[in-house]
C-alpha cells in the first residue's frame, strides 16, 4: 500500500489547489473526496439524462492567478467559451443596460452622459481600491503576536500599495471601507438598473442586504477577483464549470497527487495531541504526518476532530462561526431559447431592478420567509456555444432564500420556485412554456449535496467580522490549528470561497514556510 506524508480532506477547488502546490514541493499528497467526482462547487448533478451536469458555480469570477498558472490549468484542458463576459441589467420593459468589459468598463443602453460619467468615476475609484486590496488575497492573514510568522515584506508592500492611492483617495478608502453599498450607490449613481445590479453583485453569496453594514467591502472583494487573467472580469469555461474541476484534478494528478473519490473521512486520527491520519467513514485508516482539511472549519473541528481534543472556548468559537446560505440555485431545462425582451442571451443576465428589490428580497430571509420577488443572476451556457440549437439550459443564482424557512423546507422550496418563475415570466414572457425540467436547490439542499455549512458557498459567511485575520476566527486564521499537524485550507479560511483555490494555495504556502502547526 502506498504511503503518503500529507492527506488533504476534501477534493474541492481549494483541496486540489493545496494538494497540487504541496505535491510540487515534493509532498506525497493524497486527496480524499467524499463525492464521486472532485471539484466541489464546480461540479454538479445532471438535471436530466440528456443534459450536462449543473454545477453550483456557473461563472468563473475569482480564479486565483497563482492557481491558474501554477497548476497550468490551460495546459490541462481549461479553455473558455467566453471571457470578459458582458452583463445585462435586465429591465422588465426591455430597456436593458449593458455593462461591457470587466465590471462594466463600458455602458450601452439608455443612460445619459452624466450617468455614464458618474459610473465611470465610481468604478475607477472602486477598482483602484480593489487593486490595492487584491494582494491581501494571496497572503496568510497577519497576526499581532510575537513569532506570528507574518510575511512582513508582503504586508509592507500591501500597505504601500494602499498609501499609493494618495492622501485623498486613501481617506476616501477609509471612509468607504466599512460602509454599506446602498449608501454609496445612492450618493453616486442615479440609474436604478445600475444601482440594482451593483447592489446585487455586492451581496451575491452573502447573508447581507445592500443596506447591511460592510456590504461595500464584499463588492471590493469581488472586483479584486480575476478570471482568465483580467481583474474583475467574468469568464465561462468551455464545457461549463466542470471543466475547471477536471483541469484541476488532472493537473493535481500530473503533479503526483493521488486523488481518491468516494472516500468520505469519518474523523481525524489524533495521537499524543498530533494529527497523524484519518479514518474513513467505512473504517479504513490512512496515516500521514500532515492532515489538511479543505472542508468547512465547523465540520472539521466539531465532526472530524471532535470537541474532546479541543478547548471549550475554541469549540464555542467554532460553534459560533456564522454560516447562513442566502442563495438558491435554479436549473431549468428549456425546449428553446428564452427571450429576455431582446437581451443578448450570451451575456450574464441580472434581474435586480433597483436597490430596494435586493433589500426586500433579503428582508424576507431574515424572518425565514421566501421573498415575493427574488433577484437573480442568470447564465444560459448553450448560448455561448457555436453549434447551439434546440434545447437550452438556464442556470440562475436566486437570492435570497431562507436558510431556516419557517414553512419547512419543501414548502419553502415550492414557493421559492413559484416566485422565481413568476419573476422570470415578467422578464422573459413565455419562458414558463419552455420548461421541461426544473430543479431548485435551497441552501439546505446545497448543504446536503456539497457539505457546505448552512449552504453558504464560503463555508463561513464572508463578512467583515469573519474576514482576513478573523476568518473563520482569530485563532485559526493562519491556517494552522491548535492540533499539531492539522491545517485548514478550505473556503472557510482567508480569503473565502468561490471557484478560486486561493485559500488552498495560501494554506500550502503557509505549510511549506515551515511555521509549526
Amino acid at each position, binding site marked *: 500500500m502506498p504511503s503518503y506524508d500529507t492527506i488533504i480532506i476534501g477534493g474541492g477547488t481549494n483541496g486540489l489547489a493545496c494538494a497540487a502546490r504541496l505535491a510540487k514541493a515534493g509532498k506525497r499528497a493524497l486527496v480524499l473526496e467524499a463525492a464521486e467526482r472532485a471539484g466541489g462547487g464546480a461540479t454538479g448533478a445532471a438535471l436530466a439524462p440528456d443534459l450536462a451536469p449543473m454545477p453550483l458555480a456557473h461563472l468563473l469570477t475569482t480564479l486565483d492567478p497563482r492557481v491558474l498558472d501554477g497548476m497550468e490549468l490551460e495546459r490541462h484542458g481549461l479553455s473558455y467559451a467566453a471571457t470578459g463576459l458582458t452583463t445585462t441589467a435586465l429591465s422588465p420593459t426591455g430597456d436593458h443596460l449593458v455593462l461591457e468589459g470587466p465590471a462594466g468598463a463600458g455602458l450601452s443602453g439608455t443612460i445619459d452622459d452624466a450617468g455614464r460619467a458618474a459610473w465611470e468615476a465610481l468604478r475607477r475609484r472602486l477598482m483602484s481600491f480593489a487593486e490595492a486590496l487584491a494582494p491581501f488575497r494571496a497572503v496568510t492573514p497577519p497576526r499581532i503576536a510575537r513569532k506570528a510568522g507574518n510575511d512582513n515584506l508582503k504586508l509592507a508592500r500591501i500597505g504601500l500599495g494602499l498609501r499609493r492611492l494618495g492622501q485623498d483617495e486613501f481617506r476616501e478608502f477609509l471612509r468607504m471601507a466599512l460602509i454599506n453599498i446602498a449608501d454609496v450607490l445612492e450618493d453616486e449613481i442615479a440609474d436604478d438598473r445600475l444601482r440594482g445590479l451593483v447592489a446585487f453583485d455586492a451581496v451575491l453569496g452573502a447573508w447581507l442586504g445592500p443596506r447591511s453594514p460592510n456590504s461595500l467591502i464584499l463588492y471590493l472583494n469581488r472586483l479584486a477577483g480575476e478570471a482568465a487573467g483580467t481583474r474583475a472580469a467574468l469568464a465561462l469555461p468551455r464545457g461549463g464549470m466542470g471543466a475547471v474541476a477536471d483541469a484541476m484534478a488532472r493537473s493535481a494528478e500530473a503533479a503526483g497527487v493521488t486523488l481518491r473519490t468516494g472516500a468520505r473521512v469519518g474523523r481525524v486520527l489524533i495521537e499524543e*495531541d498530533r494529527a497523524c491520519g484519518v479514518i474513513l467513514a467505512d473504517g479504513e485508516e490512512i496515516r500521514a504526518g500532515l492532515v489538511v482539511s479543505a472542508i468547512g472549519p465547523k465540520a472539521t473541528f466539531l465532526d472530524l476532530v*471532535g*470537541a*474532546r481534543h479541543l*478547548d*471549550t472556548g475554541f469549540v464555542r468559537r467554532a460553534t459560533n462561526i456564522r454560516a447562513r446560505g442566502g442563495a438558491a440555485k435554479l436549473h431549468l431545462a428549456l425546449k428553446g431559447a428564452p427571450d429576455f425582451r431582446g437581451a443578448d442571451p450570451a451575456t450574464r443576465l441580472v434581474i435586480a431592478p433597483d436597490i430596494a428589490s435586493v433589500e426586500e428580497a433579503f428582508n424576507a430571509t431574515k424572518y425565514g420567509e421566501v421573498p415575493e420577488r427574488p433577484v437573480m443572476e442568470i447564465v444560459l451556457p448553450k448560448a455561448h456555444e457555436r453549434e447551439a440549437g434546440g434545447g437550452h439550459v438556464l442556470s440562475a443564482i436566486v437570492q435570497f432564500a431562507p436558510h431556516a424557512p419557517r414553512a419547512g423546507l419543501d414548502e419553502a422550496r415550492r414557493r421559492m420556485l413559484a416566485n422565481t418563475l413568476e419573476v422570470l415570466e415578467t422578464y422573459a414572457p413565455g419562458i414558463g412554456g419552455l420548461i421541461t425540467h426544473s430543479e431548485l436547490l435551497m441552501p439546505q439542499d446545497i448543504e446536503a449535496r456539497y457539505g457546505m455549512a448552512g449552504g453558504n458557498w464560503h463555508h463561513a459567511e464572508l463578512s467583515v467580522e469573519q474576514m482576513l485575520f478573523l476568518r473563520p476566527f482569530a485563532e485559526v486564521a493562519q491556517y494552522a490549528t*491548535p492540533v499539531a499537524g492539522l491545517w485548514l485550507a478550505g473556503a472557510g479560511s482567508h480569503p473565502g470561497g468561490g471557484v478560486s483555490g486561493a485559500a488552498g494555495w495560501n494554506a500550502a504556502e503557509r505549510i511549506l514556510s515551515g511555521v509549526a502547526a
Partner: protein
Amino acid sequence: MKDLRHHYEAPLRTTPFHDRIAAANVLNQWGPWAGYTTALVLEDAEMEYSAIRNTASLYDLCPMIKYRIAGRDAVDYLNRLTLRDVARVAVGAVQYTAWCDDRGKLLDDGTLFRLGEAEFLLCCQERHLPWLLDSAIGFEVSVHDVTAEIAALSLQGPCTASVLDAAGFDVSALKPYRFASFPFDGGDLIISRTGFTGDLGYELWIEPALALPLWDRLMAAGAYCGIRPVGSHALDIARIEAGFLAAHADFVPADQALREDRVRSPYELALDWMIDFGKGHFNGRRALLAERDGQTSEWAFVALDIEGNVAADHAILYDGRNREVGQITSAAWSPSAKRSIALAQVRRPHHAGAKGGLRAEIYALRELHYVKLMMTARMTERPFFAPPRRRTTPPGRF
C-alpha cells in the same frame, strides 16, 4: 408559578436554614453570597472560630454552587473540563480539583463528588453554567445547576464525629474525601468528610425540606460540647490557616478578570500538582504545556509568616531594594498558630527567597490614624495549621 417580574423586590434569597440562623444571629450581620443572604458573624467571631477549632461548628453552605453532571460521557467530559484525572475517583469519593480556560488560566477550584459510575456533583464558588454547557458540546452528558435543590451544611471541629454519632450517624469508617449516605427522616442524608477548615469535619447534603429537622438534630446532639452556628468571618480565619484558596480573594476567576494581567495559571497558584498531562486532552492543556516547557510562569503563590500581630490584609510586598514584588491576598492573625499568617502572589523569581527577604507594607488603623508598618515576611509552609486529627480514621472522640 411565582411571578418572576417581582424578583427585584427580594434581591437576596434566604437559605433553607435561614429561620434558625436568623434566630441565632444576635448581631444581625448579614452578607450576600451568590444571591443568598448569609451570616457574617452571629454573636462573636472569636468564639465562633474557637468552636471550629475546639468543639463543633455549623456553617450554612447552601449558597455554594452545585452542578449535577450525569451521562454516559460524564468521566470523559470532566476529564476534558478539569485538571485532574477523574477516572481515578472512586464512587463515593471526593476530588479537590480546578479548571482552566483555553489559555490555561484558572476559572475556579472546587470539589467533585462521584455519586455513581456516570454521575457527579461539582461544587464551587462561582457560577459556570455557560462554560459547563459549552464544554458539553460533543459529549453525551447533562449539566444542571442544582444549587437550590440541595441544602448543605458544614459541620467542622474536633468533636464533629462524636456529634454525628450522637445524632445517629455512624461516620467512624468514613475517611477524608469520602462520603456515605444515611437515612434521615424519610430522606437521604449524604455526609462527606470534607470541609474548608483543614480540621476534622463533615459536610452534610440534604433535600431542603429536611434542612431544619437536620439542623435541630445536630444542635441537640452537639449541645454537650457547645456546638454553635458560625459565620463567614470565623470560617475565613480557619480557611486561611488551612491554606485554602478562595476565589476573588486569592485569585480572580479568568472569565471575570477585567485586567489582562490578573489571570493566573495553576503554576502561578501552586495548583500545578493537580495537572495530569497524561490523561489526554483537557482545557488549557496546550497552554499549560507551553508554560511548563517554556518556564513562562510569571507569578508564584506562597505562604508567608509576617512579623508582628497585625493581620496583613492586602499588603504590598517589597524586596530588599524596595521594589514591589507581590501582593498579599489573604491574611489573618492565626489564633491556633499564634502567628500573623498570609497567602500571597509573588512575582517570580522572588518566591524562591528574595535577597534581603520580603517586607509587607501594613497599614494599621489606630484611632483614625494609619500607622505604616514595614514587617518582615518569611516564606513558610502551607497549611499553617494542620492537626493530625483531620486525617485520623476512625476519627478521635472528643
